[in-house]
């Protein structure tokens, strides 16, 4: 019988139960045979509809015994497992993985503890999904890295073969681009520290953010600092209200590591109103009623370093109101046909817009940095077009109303 040969591994273990239920065994082997033979005459089961279901059912039962005999090793494992909720959760996650749910393959004790601390089931699900995404990204990166390493290896080999002659070339510079660039940027940074226009990041919003949001904020700060450094004429960046040993500070130090103390910016525990004269400060916030028309080179702009994914609105406006500061928002509606998304932009987008405004003063140029998905295109800026747009909106509405009226009268 070819079957036994094929399934030799599982069957070897199954011998014991099979010999016990001899009667059953006979049944199953016959079923097996019939199953195998049905492969040969494939169309037969179509024709005789009444006979095929019991055949299928038996096939199912055959699978059942396969399962029930596997239990031997499973049960013994289950018995020594304690009532530890952590272990139970780990197993739960393992089962979820079998169901192709979005859960990570490997989970550390720490992550498991964070998971248990989640307030609700949906929070747990979200956290698991987050870990899953992280894991997938990491794996993909790993794979890419390996592929690159392989390619590099090959390229090296090829080069070795080629340049065996070792002919020499004349160069003017040594290959030290990165270092030169860093030094140049630092020079510019020092100049900005001395004569640059201040740009303040207000770090007073730590209490309004969850840990994840705080980390996002720190990432955005890092990126904004990087953009600023590379600019022709950088701002002199201030991190105001940055309390020592706050979560902000800890994260920043962790991300910058030893570079933190050599950064060419001013980090202070003081509030911006203590550092600068009040009347030259402009607080940038999307909730402001005033629109920014031009970039003023003698003003100090404050950006609230806050990522708010929660439903609370108007935090930074409240702050500006409390300190009695002037506020402004970007003229997004004036220049862009806004489509979807929040009007508040990320910190790095803000600083790039401001840098661009500082250097060129051209709003169209500067608002290039607004994500493309958020708007459908530029508006023609002239006053005329704005009015035309409004008029169009109105006539559309009127037409619509008339239409609806017609419907109503017709109905009556």
């Amino acid at each position, binding site marked *: 019988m070819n079957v036994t040969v094929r*399934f030799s591994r599982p069957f070897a273990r199954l011998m014991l139960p099979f010999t016990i239920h001899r009667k059953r065994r006979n049944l199953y082997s016959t079923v097996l045979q019939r199953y195998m033979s049905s492969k040969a005459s494939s169309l037969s089961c179509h024709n005789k509809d009444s006979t095929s279901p019991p055949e299928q*059912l038996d*096939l199912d039962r055959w699978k*059942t015994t396969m399962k029930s005999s596997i239990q031997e090793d499973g049960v013994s494992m289950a018995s020594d497992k304690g009532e530890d909720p952590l272990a139970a959760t780990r197993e739960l996650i393992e089962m979820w993985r079998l169901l192709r749910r979005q859960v990570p393959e490997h989970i550390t004790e720490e992550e498991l503890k964070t998971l248990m601390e989640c307030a609700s089931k949906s929070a747990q699900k979200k956290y698991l999904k987050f870990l899953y995404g992280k894991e997938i990204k990491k794996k993909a990166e790993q794979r890419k890295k390996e592929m690159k390493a392989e390619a590099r290896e090959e390229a090296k080999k090829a080069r070795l073969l080629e340049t065996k002659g070792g002919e020499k070339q004349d160069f003017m510079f040594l290959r030290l681009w990165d270092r030169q660039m860093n030094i140049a940027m630092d020079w510019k940074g020092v100049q900005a520290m001395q004569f640059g226009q201040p740009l303040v990041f207000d770090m007073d919003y730590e209490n309004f953010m969850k840990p994840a949001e705080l980390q996002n904020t720190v990432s955005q700060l890092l990126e904004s600092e990087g953009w600023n450094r590379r600019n022709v004429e950088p701002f002199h960046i201030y991190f105001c209200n940055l309390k020592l040993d706050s979560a902000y500070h800890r994260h920043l130090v962790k991300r910058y590591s030893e570079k933190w103390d050599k950064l060419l910016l001013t980090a202070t525990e003081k509030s911006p109103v203590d550092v600068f004269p009040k009347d030259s400060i402009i607080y940038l916030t999307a909730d402001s009623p005033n629109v920014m028309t031009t970039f003023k080179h003698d003003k100090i702009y404050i950006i609230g370093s806050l990522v708010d994914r929660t439903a609370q609105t108007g935090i930074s406006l409240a702050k500006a*109101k409390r300190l009695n500061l002037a506020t402004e928002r970007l003229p997004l509606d004036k220049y862009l046909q806004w489509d979807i998304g929040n009007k508040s932009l990320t910190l790095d987008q803000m600083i790039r817009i401001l840098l661009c405004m500082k250097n060129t003063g051209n709003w169209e140029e500067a608002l290039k940095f607004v994500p493309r998905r958020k708007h459908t295109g530029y508006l023609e800026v002239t006053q005329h077009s704005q009015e035309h747009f409004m008029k169009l909106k109105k006539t559309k509405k009127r037409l619509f109303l008339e239409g609806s009226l017609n419907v109503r009268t017709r109905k009556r």
Partner: protein
Amino acid sequence: MTFYLPGFRSFPKLWTSTLSLELGPATSPVFSFLRVTRNQHRWFSVKTTPPPNSKEINLQLAKARTLKKGHDSNRQGSFDHYFAAGAAKKRSHLTSNLQPREHAPSRVRRTIKLPTKPLNSEEWDKLKEDFNRKGSFEDWVISQMVCSSSSVDVAKSLLAWVAAKNNGIVGYNLLVKYLCLCVFHKQTSEVIDVYEIMKAKYKCLETAANTILIRGLIHSDRWREALLLLEDIKKVTVPSKRNYNDCIQGALLHQDVDMAWSLYQELVGHNLIPLLETLKAFFDFGKDINDDDYSDKLLDILLYLRNNQLYPGESFAHSIKTWFESIPGRQWKGQFTTVQRSGHCSSCGRALESIHLSPEEYEFLKGKIMRDVIDGGDQYKKTTPRELKRFENFINSCPPFDIVIDGLNVAKMFSKSRDSQILLYIVSQLAQQNLQLLVLGRKHMLIPSSRWRKDEMEWVRKLAHCFFADDISEDDPFLLYATLNSGNHCKFITKDLMRDHKACLSDVHAQHLFFKWQQGHQLAIRINFQKSKLTFQHTLSYDTVVQTTGDSWHIPYDEDLVQRSSYEVPTKWLCLQRKTQAPAGS
């Protein structure tokens, strides 16, 4: 009647039940206007005569007087207050959604036709060759089977094929999906088989499989094992209310009442809101039981509904009615009815509970509004401390108001007319009734412009007390506070449903109180013809909540065909009373 929304498919289903009764009061504005003014314009004309001390009572009396007895008033009363079930949906249809909208449900294109008969392995192989999607073929097929609830035999043949390919091993996810199908088709013996397999193969199951297994096992003799599975879930997380529902249903199915009640206690103990199905099951089971203890517990459930402002569905209401009528010796009589505007039940004539808050509740709500909505931890968010001070001084210097008007909301109602003109019109209409008015607005209203004329604003300021907040402050919190501060008789006019402010309140109890107060005190302007008389959506005088007087119960319920938003209340009632008692009133 419904043809002007041809594209909206569920419309006829949703509305015919109510509209056909009422001849569509709101679909034809003129008609409804005529009908309502007949009842409501006296709201204001009667008001000039009564002595000034007890405006509120007279107001209600006037309303009650205008009501005609009988089915006519009944019909109207059922669907025209601002918070009536389905009213918001109807409003939105009237205003914005008139265009036929084609949201054609784009079904996923099927690459493979699902088999209707069990296939053998070669046929499955052939089918697999045609499969050109991402992911595994087996997963996809069994998922589609679950979606279209194919017969169990087809799924079985699939599993057999997979097992044959795979050394007799079927994946966990396939097993779970197969279990889904078995449970759906109520194949209990098959469920038990798969249960055995799973128990043997895997040392622990996860929540999805446990949930399905519980659901499948409760119908069998081994329903107690479902409780064990529930315990398994409890080890890791809190079971869902559906898990509890299934277990309770199973216990009731097998006459284990104590177990059912203890599970119910556990469920409530976890702060889960039980499914209405669960509660209905208790009532359905109660028909066959003559036990005082059991009926006390059922009455506790009704009180639970009351405290959490839950409303039973239509079938649940029928169950409640049947249970009450089945109690021997008491002779309860149940009737489905509506409540008249005056707050009297149309069936028994009893007055329902008043919508007005008790003095303690009122003070509590006032404090909460002040603390959570206006202040909210940071006074600068919605206003400034200076402005708050100014407002408080202003409120204290004025006599209590009768009506507080949200100036901007009212003025922006008709986009075609000038804002100040509408505001003036409304204020003057109300001022004729000798009411103390307060108009809340923002400072920009005072700056003359094309929409805000100076002379008209001057008139408004002469006729009413006015308070203008800063342009970046929110005026709604002021509106709420001014109304609450003036006392129980004071009402406010706005179309705003105030959901965002309700959401600011921290605890559920305060939100319930707020909603109750809002139902009793919010006036919404009703018609779109500002030339004609000013009318309002009528305010409720009674509280829509499960209530009892000992020998009578009044239970509002949701109709199956009406979709109710969370900020609306049902309009249909179940009236239960003891036959032995002579019906009170009417």
